[in-house]
């Protein structure tokens, strides 16, 4: 299980490192970002946004995309050990792949599995970013070997996973995709992403209201 997660993280990280450098980020900063953030979707969102000059919008979009960590962390609370500070520290091990892998199926979390899965992915994530950023393959090389499709394909699959069995989210995702396509025609990428997030907030608030009744 851990090896599969690490290989996936590594492959995505290589494409992230290359993506960041070809978008004008210094290699060292891409590597630092991977070390301190360790969140693919947020990192790609930030780089996408910053290449259009809208750094603040990028941070906003990344913050929205990662808001899922709040409920994920809260759901992990009773499986973690110690007082508030230790639990907050242990909660840093929550990343998508590990969190899913560590579910016991009864609402509790296998704490050891959570840590183990994160500990194998994190170095793979940093090492992959370093290789992608330092070798910074040319755009032609990326195209020739189909490496530029890794990142959209990965997020497409993540998206499909998120949508499985949840028709309400399918509608929201389709609306977000249409909004993104329309707004990126005239706006910087980061602003387009941020608008997607805000539209999702509105749409989700409306559909959730219907659920309340």
């Amino acid at each position: 299980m851990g090896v599969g997660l690490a290989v996936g993280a590594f492959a995505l990280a290589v494409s992230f490192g290359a993506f960041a450098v070809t978008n004008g980020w210094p290699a060292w900063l891409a590597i630092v970002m991977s070390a301190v953030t360790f969140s693919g979707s947020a990192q790609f969102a930030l780089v996408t946004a910053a290449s259009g000059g809208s750094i603040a919008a990028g941070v906003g979009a990344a913050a929205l995309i990662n808001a899922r960590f709040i409920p994920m962390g809260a759901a992990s609370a009773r499986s973690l050990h110690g007082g508030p500070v230790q639990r907050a520290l242990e909660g840093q091990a929550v990343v998508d792949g590990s969190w899913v892998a560590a579910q016991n199926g009864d609402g509790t979390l296998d704490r050891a599995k959570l840590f183990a899965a994160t500990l194998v992915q994190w170095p793979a994530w940093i090492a992959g970013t370093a290789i992608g950023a330092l070798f910074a393959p040319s755009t032609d090389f990326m195209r020739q070997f189909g490496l530029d499709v890794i990142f959209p394909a990965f997020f497409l699959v993540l998206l499909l996973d998120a949508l499985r069995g949840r028709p309400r989210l399918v509608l929201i995702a389709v609306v977000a995709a249409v909004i993104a396509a329309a707004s990126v025609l005239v706006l910087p990428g980061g602003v387009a992403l941020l608008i997607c997030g805000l539209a999702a907030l509105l749409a989700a608030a409306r559909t959730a209201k219907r659920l309340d009744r």
Partner: protein
Amino acid sequence: MTGLVVAVVALAVINIVYKGIGPAVLGDRVFPPRIQEIIDALPAALLAGLVVVNLLGERWGAADATMLPGLAAASVAWWFRVAQLGCVVIAVVVTILVRLL
């Protein structure tokens, strides 16, 4: 450049707070369904946005139709419950083949 460093630091701090606040403060609290629904919807919407924005690029300048068959193949593979990594490999292989044509 300074802006990028600030952005990286800001994102790291936001992430640490997100991951720490649940275990430290919220405990095992269950969110009201509406809030939970909204939080659930955000990744789906932003992932969809992220894929589209990167496929098209600003002013649709990066639109590259040769990626579409690979992405379609990945979706089909996903439908047949191929693992994430397998779907990505299929997308890469199909994209290489399409570009060779």
